[in-house]
């Protein structure tokens, strides 16, 4: 099943999420603030909608494919490899949890806010929302409820540099009137009072789920960067031979391959547990899922610096240009590392847990 999905998405993204298309979208976003009515990414999103991937996690009874976290892992990986400039995986997660018989979500791309900050006047701001600039909606989890707010209703300011798709977004005090979720439930999603699960840590769990999605995007984009770098080293000649023949280059690329391999496994560790974060689950199962996500996001983030620096070192000056496609991927790599916590944030979570679980053997703790 995984391979079928992987191949289908590879073909689709290869065609529609090309570097040329990414550049076109970034350029269009850069030159115009009022792109909301005719977003440059509209065609790309429609292609994804038509493919059916967007509802892969939605239960079959509600019109989706009912796939599990691990089954959609190739989707996230492919989205990362192609530097897809849309929050596909995050949209899939939100729709997978919130789409139900009584509540049909709007069709547009959904970003997940990492942090929500209230102003003294009651305004709501979310700094550095990943894909904030290519989302129609933003899922904001606050305490024990979540809200789906329209991007069009926010003041959006690009939070990164250049072609960054991340944005600081702020909604004025009457923001809850814009919430697309069924307001008869007071802004709570219908599934919030899970049997035995309670509502505690809800914000934390959405944050973790988004981090898990990003871990797979990181693994995917690093895979692509490795491919580009090996290809370059196999083509570029200096001193009478391709530079990939020099041991110094070979040893660095081996280190890069190791990090990419570890990142890919780390992301799988996260995805094999992600279901327990947003579906009914026991406290113990959920705790393990949080630890798995911590490993996933920490380890993929930790791989990013070496992968980026070796890629740019091997590519030399040409890889530093805007014209070369490497920068599309390494820019995303650094931004994704920073989103939803990098190494320190998740290392602290793991260290805290292991010290606190006094009877837990390390060999058991690491068996995720």
């Amino acid at each position, binding site marked *: 099943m995984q391979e079928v999905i992987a191949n289908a998405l590879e073909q689709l993204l290869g065609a529609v999420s090309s570097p040329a298309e990414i550049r076109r979208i970034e350029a269009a976003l850069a030159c115009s603030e009022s792109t909301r009515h005719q977003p440059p990414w509209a065609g790309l999103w429609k292609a994804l909608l038509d493919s059916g991937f967007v509802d892969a996690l939605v239960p079959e009874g509600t019109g989706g494919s009912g796939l599990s976290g691990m089954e959609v892992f190739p989707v996230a990986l492919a989205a990362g490899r192609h530097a897809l400039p849309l929050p596909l995986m995050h949209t899939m997660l939100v729709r997978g949890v919130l789409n139900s018989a009584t509540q049909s979500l709007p069709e547009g791309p959904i970003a997940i806010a990492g942090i929500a900050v209230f102003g003294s006047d009651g305004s709501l701001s979310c700094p550095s929302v990943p894909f904030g600039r290519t989302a129609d909606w933003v899922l904001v989890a606050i305490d024990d409820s979540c809200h789906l707010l329209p991007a069009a209703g926010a003041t959006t300011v690009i939070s990164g540099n250049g072609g960054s798709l991340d944005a600081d977004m702020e909604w004025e005090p009457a923001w809850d009137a814009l919430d697309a979720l069924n307001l008869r439930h007071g802004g709570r999603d219908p599934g919030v009072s899970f049997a035995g699960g309670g509502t505690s840590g809800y914000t934390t769990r959405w944050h973790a789920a988004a981090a898990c999605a990003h871990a797979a995007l990181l693994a995917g984009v690093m895979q692509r960067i490795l491919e580009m770098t090996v290809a370059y080293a196999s083509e570029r000649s200096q001193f009478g031979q391709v530079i990939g023949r020099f041991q110094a280059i070979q040893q660095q690329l*081996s280190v890069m391959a*190791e990090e990419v*391999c570890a990142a890919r*496994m780390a992301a799988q560790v996260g995805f094999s547990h992600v279901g327990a974060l947003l579906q009914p689950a026991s406290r113990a199962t959920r705790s393990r899922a949080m630890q798995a996500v911590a490993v996933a996001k920490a380890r993929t983030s930790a791989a990013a610096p070496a992968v980026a620096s070796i890629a740019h070192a091997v590519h030399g000056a040409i890889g530093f240009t805007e014209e070369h496609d490497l920068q599309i991927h390494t820019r995303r790599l650094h931004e994704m590392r920073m989103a939803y916590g990098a190494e320190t944030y998740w290392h602290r979570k793991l260290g*805290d847990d*292991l010290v606190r679980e006094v009877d837990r053997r390390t*060999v058991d*703790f690491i068996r*995720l």
Partner: protein
Amino acid sequence: MIRSLSKTAMPAEDEALRMPVRAFLDEALRAMPVELRARSWMGFDVEFSRALAHRGWLGLTLPEQYGGGGRGAFSRFVLVEELLAAGAPVSAHWIADRQSGPLILKYGTEAQKQFYLPLICRGEAFFCIGMSEPNAGSDLASVSSRAVRTPSGWVLNGMKIWTTNAHRSHYMIALVRTSGAPQDRHKGLSQVIIDLSLPGVTIKPITDLTGDQHFCEVFFDNVQLDDAALIGTEGAGWEQVMAELAFERSGPERIYSSMVLLEEWIVYLRGRGRVGSEPIKLLGQMISHLAVLRAMALSITAMLQNGESPTIEAALVKDMGTEFEQQLPLLIADTLANDLASGRAVPSPLLKVLAYITQIAPSFSLRGGTREILRGVIARGLGLR
């Protein structure tokens, strides 16, 4: 290209081995000081090896007809994981169990299998690896120990070095030249099983910088080997050695050499009450690396179980694993130095274990293929060589 590793779940029937093994080890190692457990797979204890054999835990993957457990690679993974996590003294039988037995099973005649495998499974035959020579370390193909044909078998001259446990083993499986000349390199090499009690064999242990003796020099002076000493095919020694190295590189042991130190440090942290953010972060960092390494090692085991030959992938995991094993004592040293300089009491056993692991750590990335060689293997997998 390098194959992608898929996250693998441990099959339930293999996982079921864990608790009985753990219960046995908790009891058997109860009185063993942590400084000795820190020796991990370099701790030599014949009685312990026999006790494992008695429970059917030696030769777990060898066929039952030869006295083995008849189980698969996943079961062995669980067993090895528990042994190493506890710092069990497995050194005596380790090489035989990990690679010599599987090699004999793969390449041996029926007579050889029937002779050696039951002895290995009973913990009565210990093996060492005859590969490196003074002038043939990473460049293994340049071995010059030579076995010349005689009417009754072979006569062997030469020497091996860095042979772990030769002074405490019964047999050595050695890579030697049986035809041609050194410049033929990979061609003309064979593997022979040498009874180390034969006349002409002289063994000199080498003291390492920790004061222990594992490595040895082994000299062969006209050692008379019979026909049956040849294992596998004459001239196929290089391919056989490559297969043997795949066994050596594929287990979870290349990530767990420093486990006893890690556990001891965690016990210390738990006993402290309030732990600062720096050690907490450091612990989390180690855990995130180790959890992923373990998942990668298990995935390699799945490939082996499937009959695949993950040579490059095993080299990759071994290199990452040994790097982690070496980093661990360096990082713990820094945080404990901080504690000591800040006036905190640090238990002496923890410091002793740290000192030992710190000293032995360079050997982790020298055994079974150096870091630079393994990275060359990976580079070949990337199509660069």
